[in-house]
């Protein structure tokens, strides 16, 4: 997985690319750490560039969401496509992390 971070006002957009699986663990934890420390109000995960997610990847989304709650950062997702969109719908992750389809 690759990612780019862009801050605009208090909103951070993290664009994820590639595959969100267990291998992305270290990178994703850095994203979470930044979210907790950098005093932002909202963090949007742009999933448009992501072409695969598995249950370990969903687990990372849960971690991010819980960290967001603790740090008062609103986590959101947007633009999942293909298999990623299917996974988010099947597991109803948009009910715990708001998602713009």
């Amino acid at each position, binding site marked *: 997985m690759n990612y780019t971070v862009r801050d605009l006002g208090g909103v951070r957009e993290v664009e994820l690319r590639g595959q969100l699986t267990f291998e992305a663990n270290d990178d994703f934890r850095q994203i979470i750490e930044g979210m907790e420390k950098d005093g932002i109000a909202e963090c949007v995960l742009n999933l448009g560039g992501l072409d695969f997610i*598995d*249950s370990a990847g969903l*687990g990372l989304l849960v971690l991010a969401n819980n960290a967001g709650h603790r740090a008062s950062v609103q986590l959101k997702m947007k633009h999942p496509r293909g298999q990623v969109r299917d996974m988010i719908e*099947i597991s109803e992750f948009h*009910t715990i992390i708001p998602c713009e389809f």
Partner: protein
Amino acid sequence: MTGASSEGGAAAPAAALAVGGQRVLIGHPRPPAVAVLRSALASVGVRAVDVALDADGLLARVGQGAPDLLVLHLGLLADNLDLIARLRAMNGMRDAPILVLGRFSGAGERQALMRAGATDLIPRPVTRPELAARLRVHLENRSLNRSLQEVIRSLQAYHTGAVQRMTLARDMQLDLLPTTEACGGLERRYAIRLDSHFESSSELGGDIWGARALDDHRFAVFLCDFTGHGVAAALNTFRLHALLTKIDLPGDDPAETLGAINGLLVGLLPESQFATMLYAVVDVRVGAVTYATAGAPKPIVGRPDGALEIGGSLGLPLGVSPKASYRNRHLDFPPGSFLFLFSDALFEARDWDGQLFGYEGVVDLVNGLDSDAELEGGPLRQLLERYFTTMPRPLADDLTALWISRRAEPLDGSG
């Protein structure tokens, strides 16, 4: 002499520590000449030195116990070149360093000695510090080899123990699944065929499935997949199994059942761990499957006319949120139908080129089954045989697959 001695001692305190307790055997025909060797050995910290004056004495000494290093004077090998081979054949001597000391007549003789099994040759004349240095290298080497062998032995012992423990744990995990007898009981009672496949990506897996009778016309079946695989995921399957057997679940209502299990797992599972699960109640009188899913793969139902229906699947995985609620869905399941349930490993696996197998691939596989697969060891077996012709083993994730088919209605209802 004193100066040389202290010089040797000061140069190698660490080596002396490593080689100090080692035992050296010298085979030398002239006792007075042994003094130089003794002194060289003493300078590297070796005190235990035995001396044999001839081949028989040497063999006798080695027979009492292999030394850590053997220094052999060339004189003992005159007309007796096979002495080295005989020494090598003795207990503990296969890897022991054998050094030959002497005035070698030429390359031919040196080659013959090495071929005969000598570890190294020390040509004379040689100064005492040089001799000490050569001896120390071989003693240290011996000591390191010994330690390495000990480490390897201890690792092997650990590995053997770990494998035994894993095998035991794996047997315990397999014991969580319905027995062949239990499946046979369900098959007879509900006129079904129930085939299952359970394959962990390592010794232990994070999948579990179960099936049980509810009443005369209904039975329940479930397939659950905890995130990850290996020991941690396997421990969660034991948790679930214990919950399912100890707690009175509303087993005939899939949505309520998932809700109840979710309530138990939330707070029990670590933050990033959860389970996907499908719980189904098969009613053979009504001819329907009622099921609910928690993030589980969509089930596939095949009908007697060959049509496939892919059941919907919506629901938060278990253990993520206490607020999760689940819905029941219904699929027609007349005689002659089949229900195919599987964990995500089946379609998330990648072939040799890294291409995802994909859910569509599973549908194609089901569509392509021979119509007489029922006779040839069952459709699940045929499906997996075809699957594994292109998919490499072991899979990256645990695979569980269940195939439940209802027998076609007999043509003559009166029997």
